[in-house]
């Protein structure tokens, strides 16, 4: 007698055997007395349990308002909106992180390939020395297409040049930031969209919560 046979007998007792198993087991039962004995053992155990009287609850388990607290059962939509708000917020924070890290990575890469940094400079190679020598004289229009990676300049002169640029042409810098933003891996529009999703679903979840709690309080009065 192995456990698989015991299992079959137990399932047989509950009428849970498939027809082929059933026919085989029934013929086995007719010829095998020990199998019949085990079946009767299992049946006896089941009968004992079935006849066990139901223990009555020792006290009343009704819930009180206090036990339940001020938390009524929420509609099914509530967790969906809450989750959407949380998810959108996390994604939004993630895009900020990505956009914060990406320019540094780009500048790192452009340091290795200087052509990228100068190529967009607009002035061409001969205009560069002029910019280095007399930065104030550079017209703002020429600075506009300046690439996103001004920092990895090759020579000290270029680094020195940067502060004077800031002081001389602040409006150019604003334009630069816009351009830089456009080159970020996650577009600004996406961030706005995520922010909107976060805010809208957050507000909906909050409204569902509020109205459910209000209805609940009204009922409990």
């Amino acid at each position, binding site marked *: 007698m192995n*456990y698989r046979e*015991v*299992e079959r*007998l*137990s*399932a047989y007792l*509950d009428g*849970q055997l498939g027809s082929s198993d059933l026919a085989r087991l029934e013929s086995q039962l007719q010829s095998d007395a020990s199998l019949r*004995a*085990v079946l*009767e*053992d*299992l*049946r*006896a*155990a*089941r*009968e*004992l*349990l*079935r006849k*066990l*009287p*139901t*223990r*009555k*609850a*020792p*006290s*009343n*388990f*009704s*819930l009180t*308002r206090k*036990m*339940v607290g001020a*938390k*009524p*059962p*929420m*509609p*099914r939509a509530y967790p969906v909106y809450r989750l959407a708000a949380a998810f959108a917020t996390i994604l939004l924070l993630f895009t900020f992180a990505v956009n914060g890290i990406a320019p540094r990575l780009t500048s790192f890469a452009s340091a290795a390939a200087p052509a990228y940094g100068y190529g967009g400079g607009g002035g061409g190679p001969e205009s560069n020395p002029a910019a280095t020598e007399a930065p104030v004289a550079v017209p703002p229009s020429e600075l506009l297409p300046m690439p996103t990676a001004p920092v990895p300049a090759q020579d000290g002169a270029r680094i020195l040049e940067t502060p004077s640029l800031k002081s001389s042409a602040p409006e150019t810098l604003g334009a630069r930031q816009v351009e830089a933003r456009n080159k970020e891996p996650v577009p600004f529009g996406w961030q706005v969209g995520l922010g909107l999703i976060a805010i809208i679903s957050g507000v909906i979840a909050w409204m569902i919560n509020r109205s*459910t709690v209000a*209805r*609940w309080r009204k*009922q*409990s009065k």
Partner: protein
Amino acid sequence: MDELALIRAAQNGDLDAFNTLVLTYQDIVFNTAVRILGEDDPAADATQEAFLSAFRSLNMFRGGSFKAWLLRTVTNACYDELRRQKRRPTTRLEPDAGDGEEMDSPRWLVDPSMSPEQKVEAEELQHAIQHCLNTLPTEFRTVVVLADIQGLDYIEVAAATRVALGTIKSRLARARLRLRECMQGFGELLPSAFRLQKERSL
């Protein structure tokens, strides 16, 4: 109001409707808890916890047998209780010692027409069965309690315990066999109750 209407009302936060359901099912739920946990006080705690969590997650109920759904909740509450007991093993000693006395309480007497001797026998038999249930590993005990005491079918037991159907079959078979072996050890103690079983099994 029928059961489904009560459930719908309770899902909308109607606590009175839910408490009507509590009154209907509290004996079944407590009985399940006491058979799984083997002791009254933890079983009462688990029962209360089960109803509270059932109320809170009532919107997860998607039709089907409400009894099976409740028994799933109380099974979880019992497992939580057993985990708590494992974390604080010292608290387990006392209820274990009080086990026998609780079994002899008048609540056990379900049939007032029994003679005093019959009552004593019935109590001893029930005590013996609970003792044997307690010797089973928890997973086996839960399956046998849900299937044979509460009368759930295999699929409902599988859903209540989140265990595969095949595992339920094998656990139930082993649990029944072990219970039978354990009960045979009480043959001397409870002659009349077992004479009947022995006659049938031989």
